């Protein structure tokens, strides 16, 4: 087994805003003075103003614009504004020069919902507020942060419900360890919205009083909002630059509870595994942990389960622990990083912050959290937990910079750098508008339609899914489960070592259903099903639940970087030597409303068009589509391997076509190949003439000697359509034959060895995937 790289990752900058303070200093003062940020609703415009308490940042939209020092003519979401405020603080604090080596890994659960819920009906009709249509997706706040802070390195967004931002810290640390980047800004942002308030209300887990984590009398959580970012750097270079170091990111893990979509298991298996694996990753014993900042939401279910998991792991020697959610409220996608900041404050100030509002222990577990601000002697390691819907559980350990290796188990030291392992596609499954589900001959019968958008050919879902479970599953979940089942069967594996998914827009059917009924019924008579199904990690969670899979499970949600980010994470995992195989998928669904809304901003064509002749269509926009493609990736080459994954690259807002061509050439060269070695280029032309021009330019300048092809006439335009392209490329390499319907120019070589996929979304998000013959 290949050990992890010897690089140590440290925190050199912190930025934070929440209901307990607009910066780190104010946050610290509130914690020490036991001052909660939870109170009556002043900012959120909801009919439930007098019914619930919230942890609001007491600044309205214009005040946030002022604090963020941004231009007030732009379409900002509250999520983006608080994200910018926190990210800017972190960058200034660490004194990094933002440059191409700085990645931004952000997290959010509802993205721009704070504006979408105000203007949604208008989007459907006159679209007066149409600037906010494209701020809805979860990656939008990340892009606004990147642009405003001048970050132009790798960017992506993670959404795994309430564990989201712990996962972004973990991914950022792993990127640095792998050598992919030297510096990463990591964290998350989530603003309060009526959508989440009403959603949690349907689950009947909101406390109308102040929440009381780990207390016998607890009846639910209080929601909050906030954003926080950490600057992560390599320890060596941070030390060389004389940087202030807050802490080391010494351990982390993600595990899946695989018990229920919203409730945690009775034995706390997911939380237990997350903490246990984080300890293993830090190579320390449980007894080395000095303080736990618990997830501790205040719901009956979470606190009991988390307590059980803590007791299972730590036995009788439970470290000092507290939940600080009675200060901040539950800030959902931002909770992980906000509580990481609090844990780091504990470490740096040798203080444990109290679990305010606690009185009596929960009888079943009888554990008592810290209730006053107390000093911790010799604090070296602190652990923080975040658990989310879909059973998504994460733990991260921060260690003091002074700690010696004495506390570590011996095997972790002086490990070799990561070496590059070959990665093979050993199984594939695809649901698409074409006959791809059981394709003997690739694309033999082309489905031609003359329609507004392309829809998948419905499989017989009952062949794959228990009818009882089908009742809650919308289209995207169904097609995700079917295509992943086909891929696993194809690879002949029962249960993968990790599940990685990407989706640009997530579960649109459920999001629309909940949003429409919330607006139509003025926040009354809402039901929970569509709310819980609307989280971006629903498909990944449903696969884990179905397979009883407790392994690493992440969902990337950054427009046309979503699938590519999940692929990048898969390659990292396989290179780290921690897993043997990975289930990887990309999926998006189209709905009547989401199509209509995007015709208003010319993203999609307004009228019907023939998919086969899409490149000749003169209407503005692309023809919308949908689909789900899954793969099993493995380090081990099987006899049936489709292709070898050589690499993936993403770049954001290139300055001009020259930069695009440079990035493509550099990417190919980096993998010791030349442009002439590319036997087939698969381009993302989608019939949107304005942006197809970029493909045509690149094609004529860079690929004049190569055979080129396209694919979106087969599947339509959607954020994860590159997964469909990768499915095609894998088949093409295996069959050594490219379907005529795809070819733009030239004839692929007799032996198709290397296939390059180049895709971009409106010249914003560009991506490259390179596959070769095994």
């Amino acid at each position: 087994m290949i050990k992890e790289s010897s690089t140590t990752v440290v925190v050199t900058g912190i930025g934070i805003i929440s209901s307990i303070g607009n910066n780190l200093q104010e946050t610290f003062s509130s914690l020490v003075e036991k001052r909660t940020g939870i109170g009556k609703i002043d900012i959120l415009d909801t009919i439930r103003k007098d019914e619930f308490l919230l942890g609001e940042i007491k600044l309205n939209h214009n005040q946030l614009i002022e604090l963020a020092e941004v231009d007030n003519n732009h379409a900002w979401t509250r999520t983006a504004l608080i994200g910018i405020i926190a990210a800017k603080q972190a960058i200034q604090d660490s004194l990094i020069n933002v440059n191409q080596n700085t990645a931004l890994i952000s997290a959010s659960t509802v993205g721009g919902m704070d504006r979408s819920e105000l203007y949604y009906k208008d989007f459907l009709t006159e679209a007066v507020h149409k600037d906010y249509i494209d701020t809805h997706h979860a990656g939008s706040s990340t892009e606004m942060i990147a642009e405003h802070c001048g970050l132009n390195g790798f960017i992506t967004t993670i959404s795994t419900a309430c564990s989201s931002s712990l996962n972004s810290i973990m991914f950022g640390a792993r990127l640095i360890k792998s050598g992919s980047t030297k510096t990463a800004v990591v964290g998350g942002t989530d603003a309060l919205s009526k959508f989440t308030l009403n959603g949690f209300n349907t689950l009947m887990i909101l406390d109308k009083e102040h929440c009381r984590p780990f207390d016998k009398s607890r009846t639910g959580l209080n929601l909050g909002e906030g954003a926080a970012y950490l600057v992560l750097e390599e320890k060596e270079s941070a030390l060389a630059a004389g940087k202030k170091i807050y802490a080391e990111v010494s351990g982390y893990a993600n595990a899946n509870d695989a018990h229920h979509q919203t409730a945690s298991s009775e034995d706390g298996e997911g939380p237990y595994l997350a903490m246990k694996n984080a300890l293993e990753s830090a190579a320390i014993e449980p007894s080395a942990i000095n303080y736990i900042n618990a997830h501790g939401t205040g719901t009956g279910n979470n606190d009991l389960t988390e307590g059980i998991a803590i007791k299972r792991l730590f036995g009788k020697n439970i470290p000092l622990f507290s939940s600080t959610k009675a200060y901040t409220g539950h800030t959902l996608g931002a909770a992980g990083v906000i509580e990481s900041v609090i844990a780091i404050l504990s470490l740096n100030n040798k203080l444990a912050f109290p679990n305010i509002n606690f009185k009596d222990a929960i009888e079943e577990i009888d554990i008592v959290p810290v209730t006053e601000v107390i000093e911790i002697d010799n604090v070296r390691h602190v652990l923080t937990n975040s658990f989310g819907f879909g059973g998504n559980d994460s733990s991260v350990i921060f260690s003091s910079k002074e700690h010696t290796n004495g506390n570590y188990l011996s095997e972790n030291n002086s490990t070799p750098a990561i070496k590059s392992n070959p990665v093979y596609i050993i199984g594939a499954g695809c649901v698409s508008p074409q006959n791809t589900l059981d394709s003997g001959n690739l694309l033999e019968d082309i489905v031609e339609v003359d329609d507004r958008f392309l829809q998948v050919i419905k499989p017989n879902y009952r062949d794959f899914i228990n009818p009882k479970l089908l009742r809650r599953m919308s289209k995207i979940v169904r097609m995700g489960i079917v295509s992943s089942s086909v891929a696993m069967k194809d690879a002949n594996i029962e249960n993968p070592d990790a599940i990685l998914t990407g989706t640009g827009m997530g579960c649109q059917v459920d999001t629309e259903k909940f949003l429409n009924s919330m607006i139509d019924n003025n926040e009354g008579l809402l039901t929970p099903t569509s709310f819980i199904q609307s989280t971006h990690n629903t498909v990944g969670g449903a696969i884990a639940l179905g397979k009883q899979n407790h392994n690493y499970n992440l969902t990337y949600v950054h427009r046309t970087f979503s699938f590519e980010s999940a692929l990048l994470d898969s390659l990292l995992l396989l290179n780290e030597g921690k897993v043997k195989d990975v289930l990887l998928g990309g999926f998006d669904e189209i709905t009547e409303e989401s199509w209509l809304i995007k015709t208003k901003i010319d993203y999609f064509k307004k009228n019907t068009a023939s998919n086969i002749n899409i490149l000749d269509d003169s209407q503005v926009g692309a023809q919308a589509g949908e689909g789900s493609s899954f793969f099993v990736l493995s380090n081990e080459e099987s006899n049936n391997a489709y292709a070898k994954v050589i690499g993936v690259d993403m770049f954001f807002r290139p300055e001009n076509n020259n930069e695009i061509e440079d990035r493509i050439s550099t990417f190919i060269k980096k993998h010791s190949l030349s442009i002439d070695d590319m036997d087939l280029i698969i381009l993302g032309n989608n019939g949107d003439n304005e942006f197809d021009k970029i493909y045509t330019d690149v094609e004529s300048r860079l690929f004049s000697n190569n055979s080129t092809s396209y694919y979106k006439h087969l599947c339509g335009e959607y954020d994860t359509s590159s997964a469909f392209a990768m499915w095609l490329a894998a088949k093409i390499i295996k069959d050594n034959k490219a379907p005529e319907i795809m070819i733009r120019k030239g004839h692929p070589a007799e032996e198709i060895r290397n296939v390059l996929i180049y895709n971009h979304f409106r010249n914003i998000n560009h991506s490259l995937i390179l596959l070769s013959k095994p």
Partner: protein
Amino acid sequence: MEELIEKLKVQIIEQLNLEDMEPEDIDADESLFGEGLGLDSIDALELIVLLEKEYGIKIKNPKDGQKIFFSIRTMAEFIQDNQK
């Protein structure tokens, strides 16, 4: 009572999206959760909204649902006792 039971069956099938079920497939005394129909805690929350929407009855504590939603018959009895 029997009329209410039949009406409830139809409403439950619709509210919970039980695609394969017909009203005659559900026994009024069969348990809705666990062994019987196999509903879970999310369904219970859906049923709470059904009671409010169709019958104007509000349930404040989700734990009360366990008794009320034991079977279609217990649900019907609860509605009869609490309506008006």
